[in-house]
């Protein structure tokens, strides 16, 4: 995969996240995919260490359902995000599978908070995408987002990362 193709893929994913098209974003994943945001240590084994997010596609479906419900109090008002992608590298390139490494700077903001000047939050992170070819399309079989402050004090990560 050429780097330009990898960039196009990641830019499109970011655009779906940043324009609230969560269900189209969900379709980027394979049915056996894992969506992982580690806690404390980005290299910890997720079977021996808790994560912020360790979703199979069943749990991701529930996560999206929660975000769409009227009862997700932590998302009232909802977050808007801007995912800024850079440092894209292509690894382990075969016809069927490819690993993409990138940096992402996620800006998160909430409009219309009655009571506070909600700070514009920034979450820099190292990303790893493992893509797999399904038919003519590349799909995400594994997405890992290692936040730079994954061991830090964090208020809230209830938006899509």
């Amino acid at each position: 995969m050429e780097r330009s193709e990898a960039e196009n893929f990641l830019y499109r994913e970011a655009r779906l996240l940043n324009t609230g098209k969560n269900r189209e974003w969900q379709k980027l994943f394979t049915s056996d995919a894992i969506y992982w945001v580690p806690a404390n240590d980005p290299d910890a084994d997720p079977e021996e260490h808790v994560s912020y997010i360790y979703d199979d596609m069943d749990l991701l479906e529930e996560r999206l359902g929660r975000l769409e419900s009227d009862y997700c109090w932590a998302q009232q008002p909802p977050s808007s995000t801007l995912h800024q992608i850079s440092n894209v590298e292509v690894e382990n390139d075969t016809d069927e599978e490819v690993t993409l490494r990138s940096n992402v700077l996620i800006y998160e903001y909430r409009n219309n908070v009655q009571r506070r000047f909600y700070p514009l939050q920034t979450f820099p992170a190292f990303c790893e995408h493992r893509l797999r070819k399904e038919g003519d399309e590349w799909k995400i079989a594994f997405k890992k987002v290692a936040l730079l402050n994954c061991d830090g004090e964090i208020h809230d990560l209830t938006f899509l990362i």
Partner: protein
Amino acid sequence: MNAPGGSKRNYADLARTGHTHVSLYTSPEVYQDELERIFYRSWIYVAHDSEIPNPGDYKTTFIGEIPVLVTRDQNDKINVMINRCMHRGSTVCNSESGNKDKFVCPYHGWEYGPDGELITIGLPRGYNDGEVDQEKLGLVHAAKVDSYRGIIFASLYEAPDITLDEKLGNIKEVIDLYMNLSPTGKIIVGKSGVYKHPYDGNWKIQTEGSVEGYHAIFTHHTALDVMARKMGGHLKGLTNSGLHGYDTGHGNNVLEIYKLSDEEVHQRWPKDYVEMLREAHGETAAMDALRSRFNMVIFPNFAILEYQFRVIRPLSATETEVRLYHTLLDGVPKEVNLRRIRDHEFFYGQASFGGPDDYSIFARMQEGYKAGEVPWVHLNRGVESETVDEKGNRMGDLTQETQQRAPYYEYRRLMAGVE
């Protein structure tokens, strides 16, 4: 045991049974009184044995706002000491945990052993005779340190007027139930992850919120919806009767979340795990541990929930940090701990389906408390129907507020000298 100075507020009147005054959640002066009278002079959770298993191991933490160092020294003794060089006051350690044979102050090279003893000072010949007494300049130890089932508590400036055994009282048997989830009776705290969660609210909101039986079906609608579909029947207890909240004394309290039947225990846990506990603890003790889920608060800064040790650190009258230390059970099949990891991250943590809703509401409560002339916060649900069980615990229904009222008896005792 009252601290010198402080405000002249009538805390017996501000912390009534069933009503707490809004100033307890907002006033910087009240907060200072709480630090001096509660956090620095009564039993405060600092660590679990499993965090410092070997000689030389240490962790840093806080008692109130004061940085402390918890060490296991070469004699296997646990030390809780103020993390402050005796010379000019710099902390002598600024990492969260590790293993050291000495703690070196970065400013002038004063070196302390894991037992707090001052071993050497930098450029000693600059001192004349009598100017520095090395034997008296070790790190300052907490006045009292004691532990139960590996759970280490300390009282910083003065020995409390009650022993740890008296402080824990009836809640010890609930701690025992938790430890009995391991065949060896041991747990490993924090190695499998810590969520570090600040919120914009007074620390007592989390103390009360750790045993909130009333809010679940309103606040946690989305989580309960998933749990009911994915995890099955044991959640019916959240809305049915027969579950209780308890005030076990000295501010400590317990909220039952569910109690499984024998059949439900077998549905929930793998056979080899159940057998393992039966062999280790006997039939009754094993099944009691497996069937019971509860949240418990050990006032003021500590709670144990199904998968976690929860530690509350006050930052100011209106800011708090909560750490959720995941617990692993020693000696169990890997799949049991793996499930405890997945279940924990489902409900707790900043991206989970439960906890973030609570913390967003805590900030909204604190916002409402700015109306200082709306004086009372209501915690009086079920106060009239409260009973006392055969063990002497105050007892109410799950969704009533017996367990959240419990801290305020001890609060009055420590803050005002009256119950």
